[in-house]
C-alpha cells in the first residue's frame, strides 16, 4: 500500500481588528456572522482585537478598521495597523467616510467642547472646564475617513455592513479572490 500524502494544514491567516471613532456597531456585525464564526476560526486567528484584548498589533495578514479618525490616538493606532497588516480594510460608513462622528465637522471644535463641558447639564459648574489632562488624546479639528491618513486596500460600505456582507467579503479575500459584494448585500432600502 502506498503512503497517503498528508497535506500539511494551511497556516492560519492572522487578523487584527479595532474600533477607532466608531460605535462598535461594525464589530457587532462581525459577530453577526453567528455560527460561521467557528468556520472562520478554522481559517484565521485573531491578533489585536476587542475579541482577544491583545493591546498591540503584531505582524498580520489582514487588518480591519471600524470608525474614522477623530483624535491623535486614532492616528497612532491606525499607523500601527498599517505598519503591521499586509491588507488593510475600512469597514463601515465611519471608516469609509467619517460617518456620524463627522457631523461635527461643520462646527468649531471649541464651540463643541464648551457646549459639552460648560453649557450642558454640568454637575459642578464652578469647576467645569475643557479637560486638558496629558493622558487624554487631543481631538483633531475635523473627523477624517481613514483613507486620508494611510493607504487603504479595501472598503466595505454600510452602517454597519451586514454579517452576510462581512462573511462574503472575508471568505472571498481569504480564498484569494478579489472580493465583490452582490447588490443584495450592498443596498439598504
Amino acid at each position: 500500500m502506498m503512503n497517503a500524502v498528508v497535506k500539511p494544514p494551511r497556516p492560519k491567516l492572522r487578523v487584527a481588528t479595532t474600533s477607532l471613532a466608531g460605535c462598535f456597531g461594525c464589530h457587532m456585525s462581525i459577530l453577526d456572522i453567528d455560527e460561521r464564526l467557528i468556520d472562520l476560526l478554522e481559517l484565521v486567528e485573531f491578533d489585536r482585537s476587542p475579541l482577544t484584548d491583545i493591546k498591540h498589533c503584531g505582524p498580520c495578514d489582514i487588518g480591519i478598521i471600524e470608525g474614522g479618525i477623530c483624535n491623535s490616538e486614532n492616528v497612532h493606532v491606525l499607523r500601527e495597523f498599517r505598519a503591521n497588516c499586509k491588507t488593510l480594510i475600512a469597514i463601515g460608513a465611519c471608516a469609509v467616510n467619517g460617518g456620524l462622528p463627522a457631523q461635527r465637522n461643520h462646527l468649531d471644535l471649541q464651540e463643541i467642547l464648551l457646549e459639552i463641558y460648560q453649557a450642558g447639564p454640568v454637575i459642578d459648574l464652578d469647576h467645569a472646564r475643557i479637560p486638558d489632562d496629558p493622558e487624554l488624546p487631543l481631538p483633531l479639528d475635523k473627523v477624517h475617513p481613514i483613507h486620508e491618513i494611510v493607504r487603504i486596500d479595501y472598503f466595505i460600505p454600510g452602517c454597519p455592513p451586514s454579517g452576510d456582507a462581512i462573511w462574503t467579503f472575508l471568505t472571498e479575500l481569504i480564498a484569494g479572490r478579489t472580493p465583490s459584494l452582490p447588490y443584495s448585500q450592498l443596498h439598504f432600502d
Partner: protein
Amino acid sequence: MPDSQTPNSQQSALREPTAEQRRHWRLVVEGVIAKHGARPEQLLQILIEIQEELSWLPLKVVTDVAERLSISRARVEGVVGFYSFLHTRPNGRFRVLFSNNIIDRMLGSQTMMDEMCRKLWLQPGKMSEDGLVSIGPTSCTGMGDQGPALLVNGMTITKLTHQRVNLISELIRKDTPLAQWPQDLFAVDDNIQRKDILLNSALKPGDALRAALANGPDALMEEMKKSKLRGRGGAGFTTAQKWDFCRQAPVDEALGRVVVCNADEGEPGTFKDRVLLTRYADLVFEGMTLAAYAIGAKKGFLYLRGEYRYLLAPLQEVLSARRAQGLLGASILSQTGFDFDIEIHMGAGAYVCGEETALLESLEGKRGTPRIRPPFPVTHGYLGRPTSVNNVETLASACLIATQGGDAFAKIGTAQSSGTKLLSISGDCAQPGIYEFPFGATIAEVLEACGATDVQAVQMGGASGVTLAPSEFSRKMAFEDVPTAGAFMIFDSGRDMFEVASNFVHFFAHESCGFCTPCRVGTSLLTGYLDKLSNGYGSKPDLAEIDTLNRVLKSTSHCGLGQAAANPILDGLKKFRPAYEKRMLHQDFEPAFNLDAALERARQITGRDDAGAHILEEQA
C-alpha cells in the same frame, strides 16, 4: 455656492418680521402670483421675480407661495435650495458674484475679488455686518472674451480693472441704487471676429417664415432633412430627425406640441448664444417659429440662463415687435390655424439645467434633476407633451435652410457635419471673440485666425469637452473628428494644465445636482484628491485612486454632467502627465493634510503642548 451664514444673517433670518414688512412681502407675493396665475409650473419664475423685489426669500414668503399654489412647502423649499441664485437668507442689498471660470481667473478675477472684499471689509462668501453687500464666486458667466466679469444683483459687468473694482466698491459703499450706476459699466461687447453664412445673414424678420409657409410644413421638413443639420448644443443629434419624431408623436391637439430653445449656455467658456441672442434674436425666434410650423407646436419657451438676465428686456421687446408684425400669436402671417407664441423662462444658476430633460423639469417649476430616459422629450416633454429642445444656434441655422434650401446648406462643411459652427474663443490669444467657421476647419487654422501663438493646449467644447495638445492641432472641428458645443479656450505654454483641470473638476463638483451617488460623491472625492495634490500631499497611490474614480464616474453617472466630469483629468493625465507628476512629492502614501496642524485648535483650547499633544511625521 456656500450660503452666507454669518451669525448676523442668521439672526435677521430668524427675527420676526415687522407687521409692515409682512404686509410688503404679501403684496409682492400677490402681485407676482397674479401675473403668473396660481400655476405650480410657474414656481421657479415666481420665486425669481419675488426675489428680485425682496432680494431674498424669507421662509414666511416660501410658505405663502406654497399655500397660494396649493403645493407643499417642501416642494418650494426644494426648488429654492436647488438653484444657486435663490436664497432663504438675507444676502446683502448688493450681491456680487465673480465669474470663477479658469479664463476669468487667468485674467485676474481672484485678485480683484480679494481686492473688493478688502475695500468693503468682508470675507468672500460672507455678507457684511450691515447687510449691505455679499461677495463670492460663481460658475462661468459667459463673458470669457471680455473678462474678468462679475454679476451684481444679477446684472453683468465685464472687463474688470482695478479702476472698475474701485468704482464699483465706492458705489456699493455709498449704497447707490443700481439704476443710478454709470450705464457704461454694464456694456457687453459682441466681439464678432469672423463671419460666415449665419452671421452674414441679412434675413429680415418674417423672410424665412414666408418662404416656409409658401411651400408647407412637409416641404420644410424635406429641406431640413437635405440640410443634414445637426444640433449645436453638444450631442449633435440630427435636427430633422428630432423634429420628425416630435411631429409623429401622438398629441392631445388641444394642448399641442412644444418647442424649447435651449439658451442655458452654461458650459464654461461658451458665449456664442449670448451674441446670437443680442444681435440675431429675430433669427432665433424665427427658427423657433419654423420648428413650431414643422412639428405643429402651439407653445414655445426660450430658457434663458440667469447669468444673461440683462438680455431679458431686449428679448421681450423683440417678441413684442414680432407679435405686432404678425410673426407670433394667432394666425401667424394670416395663416389660419398656425398659432404659436413664445414665453421666456429664466434659469437661476444651475449648469445641469442645460441638459434637456433637467431643463424641462426646470421649465415645469421643479428642481433641475435630469429625467430618466426613455421616454424622450420628443414624445413626453414639457408637461408630458411632445417637445423639441434645440440649441439657440441650431434654431437660427434653420432660417438659412428655410430660405436657401437644404442642399445649399449641406454643401458647406464636411460629409457628416454640414454648415458652419460658431466658436467662442477665449484665453491666450490676440483677438478673443466669436468666430464662425465652416465645419472641417482645423484647430491650427482657428488658432491662426485669432492670433494665438505659443499654444500649449486648447480646451474644445468647454469643461466637459476635450483637451487638445499641439500634436493634435491638425485635427478638424467636426462631429466625426473633434466635436464641439462652441467653447474654444486657449492656454499658452506659461499655463499650468493641472490648474486648468482642477478648475473644471471643482466646477463639476459644484454643479452636480446630487441626484445620483456616483456623481454627487464622486465629483467631491475627485476634488479632494486634486486638492491633495495641489497642496503638496500627492503620492503615487492617489493617481490610482483618481483613475478608479474616473471610471466609476464615466460608467455609472445618470447624466452627461457626471459622465464628463472626469474628462479634464483623463485628458490631462494622458497628455500633460508631468503637470501631475511634479505634484507627486512623495513615493509612498501621504495623509491628505498636516496631522499635527489638525491638533493646533485643540492645543489652543486646552493650553497643552506636551509630547502627546503632537503627532510627528512617520519614520519612513
